[in-house]
């Protein structure tokens, strides 16, 4: 027994009042390296042991504030610097909308950091090879007893003095605690090559699996079902329709936007009654009318509408546009002629849009007025 190294001397008490008294007395005797082990935190024990308040709060504060700042900076960089996109008319850096995320990141970082700091920095956990592990003493204090231990490396440690002190405090059990051999020789297993190799293998497998899933698996059947969908290209043979055509003719009666069909075929007089020129006379409409008239009408009708054009003799001459009959025609009646054609004149509905036809009519009115000017027009 004596070749073992002593860790400390322990005493067990049965009542919470006793352990408080014991802790106070031990502290008053000037021992520094001692500890109290209780199955749950005992009120007033921190005062009895004269412990300073825990400093873990500072870690929460610092990490929490850093987390908040990091969240703000990250969001600013992502949405105002790296790839600015306007969402809902908000500024690129719209701070009020970032508050929820900042709050969550603050809480998350501070909570994780505080717990990790407590476990791994303050407590130096995991530590399953502490001398107390596996002792009867720890078994008792884990359940319903209250223990105190004075460590052997305390400056004032003297086995007999400690024993007497505990006995005077009415300790129910006394027990010296020794280091086990494997506890002395214990080294942190995390630095063993085996463990490091294990970590490396895990890291490689993990990153390999992620790479495979995101770069290979998602492009395979059936995960590619959204990227690779069957579709019909124009002028391709259709597998669905019985006539085999990929392109479909519109349903009967379908009208393209702005292309209301002409309703007065064969009824030019009715057209003259019903149709009203929708294009008001303006500089731009007259200009358009002149342009279209010169292009499509002037070869036969002449630039001035006289019918004596440059094609004179090659085609039957059209009648003059300045006759009494034509001047009394309504715009709609002329529109019918342009749309349908008349005698030798073909339909111009494919060359001229409806608006262009009306513009041409406006221009014809100008020509008619110019050829039959009144006195009042000169003024």
């Amino acid at each position, binding site marked *: 027994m004596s070749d073992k190294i002593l860790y400390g001397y322990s005493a067990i008490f049965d009542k919470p009042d006793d352990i408080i008294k014991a802790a106070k007395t031990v502290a008053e005797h000037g021992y520094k390296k001692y500890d109290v082990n209780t199955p749950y935190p005992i009120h007033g024990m921190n005062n009895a042991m004269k412990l300073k308040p825990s400093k873990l709060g500072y870690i929460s504060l610092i990490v929490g504030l850093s987390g908040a700042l990091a969240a703000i900076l990250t969001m600013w960089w992502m949405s105002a610097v790296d790839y600015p996109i306007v969402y809902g008319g908000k500024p690129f850096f719209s701070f009020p*909308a970032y508050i929820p995320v900042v709050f969550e990141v603050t809480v998350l970082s501070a909570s994780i950091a505080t717990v990790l700091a407590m476990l791994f920095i303050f407590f130096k956990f995991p530590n399953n090879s502490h001398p107390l592990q596996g002792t009867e003493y720890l078994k008792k204090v884990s359940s319903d007893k209250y223990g105190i231990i004075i460590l052997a490396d305390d400056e004032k440690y003297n086995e007999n003095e400690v024993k007497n002190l505990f006995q005077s405090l009415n300790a129910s059990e006394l027990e010296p605690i020794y280091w086990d051999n494997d506890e002395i020789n214990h080294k942190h297993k995390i630095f063993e090559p085996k463990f490091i190799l294990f970590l490396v293998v895990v890291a490689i497998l993990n990153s390999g699996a992620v790479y495979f899933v995101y770069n290979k698996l998602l492009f395979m059947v059936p995960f590619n079902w959204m990227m690779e969908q069957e579709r019909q290209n124009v002028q391709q043979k259709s597998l669905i329709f019985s006539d085999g055509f990929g392109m479909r003719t519109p349903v009967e009666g379908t009208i393209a936007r702005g292309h209301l069909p002409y309703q007065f075929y064969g009824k030019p007089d009715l057209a003259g009654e019903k149709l009203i020129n929708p294009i008001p006379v303006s500089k731009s409409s007259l200009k358009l009318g002149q342009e279209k008239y010169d292009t499509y009408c002037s070869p036969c009708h002449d630039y001035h509408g006289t019918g004596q054009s440059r094609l004179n003799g090659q085609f039957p001459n059209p009648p003059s546009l300045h006759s009494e009959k034509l001047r009394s025609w309504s715009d709609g009646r002329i529109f019918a002629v342009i749309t349908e054609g008349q005698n030798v004149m073909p339909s111009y509905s494919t060359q001229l849009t409806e608006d262009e036809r009306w513009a041409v009519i406006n221009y014809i009115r100008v020509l008619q007025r110019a050829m039959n000017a009144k006195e009042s027009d000169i003024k």
Partner: protein
Amino acid sequence: MSAVDYSHEISVVEGKPALRELDDLIIKPLETKPNKNFLIALSITLGMLGFFVIGLGLTFYYGIGMWGNNNPVGWAFDIVNFVFWVGIGHAGTLISAILFLFRQKWRTGIARFAEGMTIFAVMTAALFPLIHIGRFWLPLYLMPYPNQHSLWVNFTSPLLWDVFAVSTYFTVSLIFWYVGLIPDFAILREKTENKIKKTIYSIFSLGWRFSNRHWQHYEMVYLILAGFATPLVLSVHTIVSFDFAVSILPGWHTTIFPPYFVAGAVFSGFAMVQNVLIIVRKIFHYEHIITLDTLEKMNKIMLLTGSLVGYAYGMEFFIAWYSGNPIEQFTFINRAFGPYAWAYWIMLTCNVVSPQLFWFKKIRRSIPIMFIVAVFVNVGMWFERFVIVVTSLANDFLPSSWAYYKPTYVDFMILIGSFGFFFTFILLFTKALPVVSMAEVKAVVDGAQPSHHDH
């Protein structure tokens, strides 16, 4: 009733049991082999879980067209279930954090279990957005990570806030839970004779040795975590309500949503915790740890939050009328008397009327009645989310696009399955971990703390 003695605090654990007995009682389910009742219960929940697997399989194979969702009701059972389960998850943190800050000792008996329920409920809830995005294997796109599109997520969207809120809530709840479990793992490590169990408990207890120099920091961390978790639990359902409130849909676009959702979440969470605890205390003989007084206090909280929810329902109608906005007014009249009136009145009966029974002390302390009321509350809270989500969408601004939403059998399979998922975890939890915090309960037994004659 006899006169109450106010001269000393009533103990939250009845009968002054010996500390060792408490340990043995709480550890018993872990040491014994599962009995017949447990196996029957587990096979039922696994059967329900089977529905979940089949429902999800159909959804993933054929697409979400298997659901009843239509145009305009693009959000239906999946979001209803999400909000419902996140709400269930609110009781745990409320009990462990807010009641801790208020120094409510009665929380110790139920905190561990409620926290466990929080974690399982949030896990269940988190499945639904994943399912709803259609391509559930691409959840990574929810996170801001450098991707091949060089695009970042939209930080001004409530749906993105949801991702952060729910994942933070889950992580912090898990940490909170684990920190609470460390001393209990150490107790188990000291108790067990089985070598494999001892290894497992040693790993998870990290070498905890009940040192007061550790307890001191431990209590500080518990306080800090409680301080963080309190605003966190309020923020989570607030942000869930933003999913609706930030939109412009009548019936969703209201500022009352955040407090109303939080009250509703606590309400439904407490109902679920109460339901499950009534069964647990009976089966494991924890009647003196989870006392009738504790259940009565939970009922009082349900009465309070239920009344808050009822007030919110009334206030929504008042504001609709007071705003003078005809579309808003139509939405609410349509809720109560329109095509979904049946759902609205189920919700109102279960959520507003049934908890009012808790004004009577006899009912508050009668276990069968409180159990039934809590079941009603759970049904009602599920319908509340259904009413909010579906009625507003089904009859929106454009009457030509109105459509009546009808769930399909796949929707119901997933709904039933989500309960199977949740309760399977609960059952395994009762057999794998101590469902009551041993260290905390022992600390509040009569005579466990020093007598304070020197203060």
